[in-house]
């Protein structure tokens, strides 16, 4: 179901393919459009299938931004609920993946803000659970710590690009920002992440 749904299985880095912005037609197949149409009428089976197809995408987006499993679960659930409740307002069914991504990002960023207002340190929980250990696990911990130090906006572009492999124009569409901003935000986010990671691991 398009790049967003397929993102989890995509092995990529420098990989081409159609974009959300200009290749929308090829992106969602007829069966997917039919699912969306049925979901709009409140068909529970269609809704279940859509959630199943997109839950990894939404959850990973939320986790990347929120850095916490419980919050990411709440954000995922909330994003789907909001999406299905306002599905009637979605004009072009083909834009569903971008639209859903936008909702997920917005909810996650709102939750980050709400958390910041309650003055909680997102890195706390991560720090608490570290006990050295295997390479993969410690790399993951390093990544989480470094990501947590980025601003939510920087985390968001990293998540959309690195987690899901969205193209720049797709990210621009999801975040509703100019493509030039995506470009510079991504650059700064990556350089900062690199800086924090080299600090964590003591390499260059």
């Amino acid at each position, binding site marked *: 179901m398009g790049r967003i749904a397929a993102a989890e299985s995509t092995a990529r880095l420098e990989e081409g393919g159609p974009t959300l912005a200009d290749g929308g037609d090829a992106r969602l197949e007829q069966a997917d459009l039919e699912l969306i149409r049925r979901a709009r009428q409140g068909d529970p089976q269609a809704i279940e299938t859509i959630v199943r197809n997109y839950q990894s995408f939404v959850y990973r987006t939320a986790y990347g931004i929120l850095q916490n499993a419980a919050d990411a679960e709440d954000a995922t659930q909330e994003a*789907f609920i909001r999406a299905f409740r306002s599905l009637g307002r979605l004009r072009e069914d083909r834009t569903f993946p971008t639209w859903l991504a936008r909702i997920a990002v917005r909810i996650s960023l709102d939750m980050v803000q709400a958390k910041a207002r309650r003055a909680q340190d997102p890195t706390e929980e991560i720090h608490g659970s570290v006990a050295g250990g295997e390479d993969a696990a410690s790399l993951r911990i390093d990544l989480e710590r470094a990501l947590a130090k980025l601003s939510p906006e920087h985390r968001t572009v990293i998540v959309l690009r*690195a987690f899901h492999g969205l193209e720049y124009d797709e990210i621009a569409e999801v975040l509703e920002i100019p493509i030039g901003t995506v470009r510079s935000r991504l650059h700064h986010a990556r350089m900062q992440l690199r800086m924090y990671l080299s600090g964590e691991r003591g390499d260059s």
Partner: protein
Amino acid sequence: MQSCEFVEPMLSDYLDGQLGTDDEARVEAHLAVCARCRNLADALRSDERALVSWARTLTAPADMPLRVLKALGLSRQEVQSRRLAYVYFASLALGVALVLAAVSLPVASAATILLHFALAVVRALFALPWAVHAEWLVVLGGFSLVMLVLSLTGLRRALRWTRRGVVWR
């Protein structure tokens, strides 16, 4: 040759294949001779790979579809209990409609009997304090009231049960 200050801001775009051919050639020429920028590019690439493989380990809870359906009031249990309520009220309406139809059909003698019966019940109910001799009517009225209460309680129980029971898995 380009300086590091010139190339560094282009690395992100370069790794994403977002540069034009000229800029790409410039960056590559620089990377060929500058170990520092080459290391940085490699490190950025491996960060990206690490992020991708980390993202793959993140999985949404398996019951997410159920949670969403529940929150939307569309879970199978809720749909079932709603259906049960529909069936109950539909049969109630059907019953009333049947009685009314029977009553409004002048040809049906059964209907007339029914009408007389219903009228008798109503009259008996009104005349209850004075019509002590019609005890059977009182019994009948009481019986139907009990039946009504029982059926309503049963419906409520059934609704609560279907909501609580795990029908989904």
